[in-house]
């Protein structure tokens, strides 16, 4: 019976669900207080670690706090996305 109801609703999210999801996301941003300086700090630390193992292109390296869908595809979750172009491996890494 309950499943039938779900089917009839075409799995449409209610305004209540939408509000909750949007609020959760906006609060993650607010609470983490992600200033550009904060991201710069994260970025420089990541560069330091990765450079021990590979040569990377620092100029085109990009780090962002963004959203993505969760593994089950039902929710939107925050994500730290880093795009790090690799120029080559260092010998120490082999």
């Amino acid at each position, binding site marked *: 019976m309950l499943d039938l109801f779900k089917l009839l609703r075409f799995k449409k999210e209610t305004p209540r669900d939408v509000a909750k999801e949007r609020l*959760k996301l906006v609060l993650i941003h607010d609470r983490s207080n992600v200033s550009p300086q904060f991201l710069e700090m994260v970025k420089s630390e990541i560069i330091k670690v990765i450079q021990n193992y590979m040569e990377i292109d620092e100029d085109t390296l990009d780090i962002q706090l963004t959203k993505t869908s969760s593994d089950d595809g039902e929710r939107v979750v925050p994500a730290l996305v880093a795009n790090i172009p690799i120029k080559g491996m260092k010998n120490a890494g082999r």
Partner: protein
Amino acid sequence: MGEVIVITSGKGGVGKTTTTANIGAGLALLGKKVVLIDTDIGLRNLDVVMGLENRIVYDIVDVMEGACRLKQALIKDKRYEGLYLLPAAQTRDKNSITPPQMVKLCDELRREFDYILVDCPAGIEQGFKNAIAGADRAFVVTTPEVSAVRDADRIIGLLEANEIRSPKLLINRVRQDMVKRGDMMSIEDIIDILAIDLIGVVPDDENIIISTNRGEPAVTDNKSQAGQAYRNITKRVMGETVPLLDLNGSEGLLSKMKKLFGIKPA
């Protein structure tokens, strides 16, 4: 020694002033000696919500500047024994007083009153800093909207940063019919997100507008559902354990019949 409670929210228009007026009148009805302080300098409103606008002679800035004694600025509410109002100044701004002055004022009032309720202005600037300066406890008012809950979250963070520990949440203007339809966030949704304790929930109620028009707090109205909610909150402020108001009381005949026959409302 009295207790200083600040009523705050971040966002404007969620019901801070109405809440202050109702809890204040409610405490006075239960025999407590209460003073309400309006710290919204430049945009004062607690006086009109209380129906005391015609009796203002001196205000909070006059007290701070020494233009009058504190006792002269306190307006005695003749309808409720033990209830007083210290109005805000209307033609000045928030920078007319400072947090240390507020601390001193609150300490002075603590000796005379059981409860000092501070009505905080919207925002997080000077007015907010003044309002929270002397407070022992804080009630954060919000409504079931994304913007209001977001601002409440910010305010909770700022209160904790200012060492006002474990603020309590008041959720205002809840419409249980909308929650049931999936059109509004529920009490549980909001608590889940903000992760703080509740002091109470007030349903959306026309009687609030009527009572505000009259300048008589709804807490005295026995027919008002919001009034009942405020009476419950008042008792909780005094430390009593009162169960949350059943917001399903206003449902229609059809859903009552369905319930009677065991049919779950969709």
